[in-house]
C-alpha cells in the first residue's frame, strides 16, 4: 500500500476509535477534509520582507497586504470571507483600487483568518497562506503543509525560525516542507543592473551552506516587485516605460540615480510626476532601470518583456521549486501533516484502544519508503552520508531530489519512451544492487544504495 493510502486508513481508524470525543472527531474530520485538498503553502518571514508581494506574484493579481492570516484558494468567482472569533464567517467585498485588489475588512477590527476565493491557475494546485510577521512557527505550520520562508540574507534569526519549524520528531524525520526564498533580490545587489544574477549566485551558495542545507529543500532568489510587475504590467505603464526607454541611456542615467531624482522637478521627458511616482511604487527604482534597459535591448513588446521579467525576477525558479518540492510531493506532504495531526491527537487524548494506532504511527514514520527517500536526500545534501562523487549525483536524482516523475528520476531531459526508460532503469538497478552488496563499502553507503535499489524496484512496475 502506498503511504497516502496507509495514512488515509489510519485517519479513518482514528475516527472510529475517537468517535465518542467531539473535540477529537472535529480535529480528525478537519484533517480528513484537508487530506484531499491541494497543498497548503504558508508564506512567512519578517515584517516588510515582501510576503504579500510574493503571494501576489504567485497568484498573478496584486492584493493589498492585510495584517492577518489570509488564505487564497481556488474559486470560480472572486469572493472573500472573514473568520473572526467563534461563529459563522462573514462575506466581505473585494474591491479594486489603483490596480490593486483590496479585501474590505474595515468593520472587523480583528480577523483570525480571511479566506479569499480567487480564480487563478496557480491556485488549482495549491492553497497559499499569507501570514502576519509576528505569527510563531507553530501557528504558521499548524495549518500549512509546506512553508516558503522569505529572508534577505540568512541571519541567525532566520535559522532559528527554520529550526523551530522542524522541531518535532516527525517533522525532523521528514524535513521536506521548506523552501527558503531570498526575497527582495533587487536590493541584495544594491540596485545594480546585474543585481538579480548576483542574488541567484548567493542563493546557490546558501544551497550548499551546511547551516542552511538541512533546514530547507531549496533556496531561490526572487525580486518580488518585478515578479508582480511581470504578471500585472498594464498597458499604460508599459507605454510610459517605453517613452522613458526612448531616451538615451546616458541621458536617463542621471535621473535614475536615486528615487528622489526620478520623481524630481527637472525631468527630460514630459511626464506627470504622479505617473513617475506610480511607476516608482510599482517597480522600484531598480525595476525602472531594468525594464528600460530591457526595452532598449529589444524586448519591446509587452509579451516579450513579461517573459523576460518572469525569468529574471526568479518567479520562474520559485514556481519550479514549488512544483518539484510541493505540488509533485502532495501525497507525502499531506501524509506528513496527517501524521503530525495524529501524533498531536494521541498526545492530547491518549487512550488504551488507540495503542495499535500509535504503534502504526511509529512504524509508518520509521519505515515509509517515501520518508526514507527524503531522509536520504537530506543526508546526502547535508553531507551526513557521503557517496563517491559520480554516484552521489545519480543517487540524488533517482530518489527524486530533482523531481519524482520517472523521467526526472532517470535523468532524461526529453520524453523518452517506456522501453528506453525501462532499459535505463534496469541498468541503474543492476549497478545499485552491486553497490548495495559491495562488502568493501562503508555501512552508510550500503544502506543508501539499498534505498536507491528499493526506489528502482518501485519504479519498475510503472514501466512494464
Amino acid at each position, binding site marked *: 500500500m502506498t503511504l497516502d493510502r496507509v495514512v488515509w486508513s489510519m485517519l479513518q481508524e482514528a475516527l472510529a476509535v475517537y468517535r465518542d470525543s467531539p473535540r477529537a472527531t472535529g480535529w480528525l474530520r478537519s484533517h480528513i477534509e484537508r487530506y484531499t485538498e491541494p497543498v497548503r503553502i504558508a508564506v512567512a518571514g*519578517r*515584517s*516588510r520582507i515582501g510576503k504579500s508581494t510574493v503571494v501576489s506574484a504567485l497568484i498573478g493579481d496584486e492584493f493589498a497586504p492585510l495584517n492577518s492570516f489570509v488564505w487564497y484558494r481556488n474559486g470560480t468567482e472572486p469572493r472573500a470571507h472573514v473568520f473572526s472569533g467563534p461563529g459563522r464567517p462573514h462575506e466581505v467585498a473585494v474591491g479594486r483600487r489603483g490596480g490593486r485588489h483590496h479585501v474590505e475588512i474595515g468593520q472587523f477590527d480583528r480577523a483570525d483568518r480571511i479566506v479569499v476565493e480567487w480564480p487563478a491557475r496557480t491556485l488549482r494546485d495549491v492553497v497559499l497562506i499569507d501570514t502576519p510577521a509576528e505569527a510563531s512557527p507553530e501557528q504558521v505550520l499548524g495549518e500549512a503543509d509546506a512553508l516558503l520562508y522569505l529572508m*534577505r*540574507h*540568512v*541571519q*541567525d*534569526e532566520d*535559522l532559528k525560525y527554520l529550526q523551530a519549524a522542524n522541531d518535532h520528531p516527525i517533522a525532523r524525520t521528514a524535513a521536506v516542507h521548506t523552501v527558503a526564498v531570498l526575497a*527582495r533580490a533587487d*536590493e*541584495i*545587489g*544594491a*540596485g545594480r543592473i546585474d*543585481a538579480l544574477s*548576483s*542574488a541567484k*549566485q*548567493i542563493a546557490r*551558495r546558501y544551497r550548499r*551552506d551546511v*547551516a*542552511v542545507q538541512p533546514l530547507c529543500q531549496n533556496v531561490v532568489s526572487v525580486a518580488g516587485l518585478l515578479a508582480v510587475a511581470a504578471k500585472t504590467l498594464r498597458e499604460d505603464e508599459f507605454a510610459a516605460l517605453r517613452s522613458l526607454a526612448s531616451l538615451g541611456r546616458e541621458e536617463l542615467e542621471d535621473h535614475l*540615480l*536615486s*528615487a*528622489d*531624482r526620478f*520623481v524630481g522637478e527637472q525631468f527630460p521627458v514630459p511626464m506627470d510626476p504622479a505617473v513617475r*511616482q506610480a511607476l*516608482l*511604487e510599482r517597480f*522600484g*527604482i*531598480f525595476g525602472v532601470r531594468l525594464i528600460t534597459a530591457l526595452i532598449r535591448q529589444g524586448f519591446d513588446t509587452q509579451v516579450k518583456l513579461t517573459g523576460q521579467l518572469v525569468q529574471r525576477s526568479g518567479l520562474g525558479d520559485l514556481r519550479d521549486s514549488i512544483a518539484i518540492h510541493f505540488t509533485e510531493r502532495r501525497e507525502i506532504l499531506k501524509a506528513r501533516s496527517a501524521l503530525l495531526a495524529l501524533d498531536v491527537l494521541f498526545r492530547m487524548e491518549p487512550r488504551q484502544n488507540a495503542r495499535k494506532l500509535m504503534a502504526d504511527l511509529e512504524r509508518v514514520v520509521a519505515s515509509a519508503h517515501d520518508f526514507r527517500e527524503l531522509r536520504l536526500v537530506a543526508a546526502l545534501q547535508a553531507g551526513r552520508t557521503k557517496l563517491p562523487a559520480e554516484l552521489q549525483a545519480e543517487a540524488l536524482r533517482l530518489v527524486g531530489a530533482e523531481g519524482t516523475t520517472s523521467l526526472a528520476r532517470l535523468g532524461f531531459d526529453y520524453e523518452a519512451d517506456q522501453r528506453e526508460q525501462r532499459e535505463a532503469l534496469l541498468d541503474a538497478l543492476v549497478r545499485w544492487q552491486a553497490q548495495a552488496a559491495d562488502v568493501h563499502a562503508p555501512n552508510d553507503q550500503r544502506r543508501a544504495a539499498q534505498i536507491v535499489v528499493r526506489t528502482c524496484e518501485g519504479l519498475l512496475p510503472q514501466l512494464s
Partner: protein
Amino acid sequence: MSQVMAPPWLDVLDETIAACVTHRRPDLEARLREKRAQQLDPKLRVLVVGESKQGKSQLVNALLNAPVCAVGDDITTTVPTFVQHADTPSAALVRNASARGSIFHTPTERIAVPIEQVTKQVSTARSQHVVRAEIGIPRALLDSGLVLIDTPGVGDTRSAHTASTFATLMQADAALLVSDATGELTSAEMTLLKKVMEACPNVTVVVTKIDLVPSWRTVVERNKALLARAGVPAKLIPVSSALRLRAAKTGDQRLNNESGFPELLACVQRDIVASADLLARRAVAVVASSAISQLVTPLREELTAHDSSRTAATISTLQEAQRRVDELRRRSARWQNVLNDEMADLISDVEYDLRDRTRKILREVDKTYDEADPAIGWDKFEQWLEDNLNEAATTNFAWLMERAEWVAAKVAKNFPVYREDLIPGSVLPDDLLEPVGRLEKPKIEPFSIPQKLFTGLRGSYGGVLMFGLVTSLAGMPLINVISLGAGALFGGKSILDESDQRLKRRQAAAKAAAQRHVDDFFMKFSKDVRDSGRHIQRSLRNHFSTLAEEFQETLLESARSAKRAVQDDQTERERRLREGRKELDKLVTLYKRVQALGGPAMELSA
C-alpha cells in the same frame, strides 16, 4: 606653565585602576589599562558596525572616496579593516602567528600587500588566521588621527565574524551604526545599538541606500521615533554611498549634496574629531563607572550580608552540630528500646520453639514404647533420641543466631548514623552446646526359665486343686486327667500374665527414663539458650553504646569548635566591616569624580 598637565580623566582612570588592583580584579584592570593606552594614543577610532549587508564597507569607501574596503552582494567583509592616514597608500594584513588564539595577547605578524589587492585578500582571507587588515591612505579627513574601522556584519551565520566585531568594539572611541533604508531598525539592531552604547557612548546611526528606496523619509522618521522611544540619544543621518561615489567620479557637487555625505562628514568632524577630549572623558567615564559599579556591588553585598552570611554560616554549623547531638540522644533511646524489646521477644520465641520440638520428640517416644519392648533395641533407641535432640538443638540454635543477626541489623537501622562497621561481626558466646549427660538406661528385669517354671507351677497348683476337688465329688481321685489338664492351662496363663506385666513395667520405665532425659536436656539447653540470648543482648548493647559514645564525642567536638568560631568571628567581622566601609566610601568618592567627567548618570551610594 612649563609642565604639560595630565588631563583630569587620566588621574581618575589611574585611581580606578588602582582600586581594581586592591580589590583583586585583574580582568577589570586589564580592560581599563587597554582603554588608558588607547585614550593616550592620539588616534581616534571610529567603528562602523551593523548587521550584514547594510552597506558598511561601501560607507567607508564613500567617506574616503576610495575603494579600500571589499564590497559585494554576498558576505564580503570577514575581518575588521582599519583605515588610517598615511602619506603614501599602503596596506597590510595582520595574521595570528599561532594557528589559534584570541585577538589580543597573541603574537601577530604583519604582511604588506599591494593596496589594489587588499580588498580581494580580505574577502578571501577566511581560513588564513587573518586578524585584521590595515590600510593607510592620504586623506584630509584622516589627517587628525581619525581611524575608520570597517567590521564584519553582526548576526551573520558565521559567528566568528560577530565575535571579532565585538572585540574591536572595545577599542572604539565612536561608532557609526549602519542600517539601510529598506526597512526601519529591527529589534536585533536596537539590541546591537544598546550593546555598542555600553562600550562606546558616542554613536551615530547612519541610514544608507536612500537612493534605492522611494520612501526613505518615512523610514528615517520611524527610526527617529524608535530611538526616542528607546531613550537612545543618537543622531541619525541618511546617506547614499552610491550617489557619493558617483558624484566623486563625475565631480557633480549637487549630487554630492544629495548623497547626504556633507552632513555626515560635518558630523564626524564636529562630534568626533573636534571633541576628542570630550569623547575621551565620556568614554573614560563610561568604562570607569562600569568598573566601579562592578567593584562596589560585591563589596556592598559583603557589608550587608556580613552578619547574615558568614556568621550565619558559622551559627548554622553550630546549630547543626547541636541538633545532631540532640538527635543522637533521642535516637539512642530508640535503639536501646528496640534492642530490649527484640531480645525479649527473641528469647521467648526461641524457648517456645525448643519446648515444642522436645514435646514432639517425647510424643514420638510414647508412641514407640506403647508397642515396642525396651529390652529389644534399646541402644538403637538411645541413638535415635540423641540424634533427634541434637537436631532440635541445632535448628533452634541456628534460628537463634539468625534472629540475633536480624535484631542487630534492626538496631543498626535505628542507629542515628550509618557506618560500615555498624553491624557487629560476631555476637556469639563460644562455649555453647555442651553435651547433656548420657541417657540413663532403665532397669530391665529379665524373665528367666526357672522364674517362668515357678510362676507356671504356682498357677497350675490352683487349677489342679480346684478341678481335683470338683471331680473328687464325682468319685474321681484328686489328681486325675481333668485336674491335671486344668492345672496345665492355669499354669500357662499365669506365665503369660506375668510376662505381660513385666513388659508394661519395662515400657513405663523406659518412657520415664526418656522423659527424664528429655527434661534434663530441655532444662540444660533452654538455660544455655537464655544465656546466649542475654550474652548476645549484652554484646550488642556494648557494641552500639561504644559507637554512640564515639559519635557523640565527635559531634560535641564539632559543636564546640563551631561555638569557638562564632566567638572568633565577632571580632574579625567588626574589623572587616570597618575596612569595608572605608573602601566603599573611597569608591563612592571616586565614582562621583568619574561622574563629574560626564558619564551617564547612575545612582550609587554607600
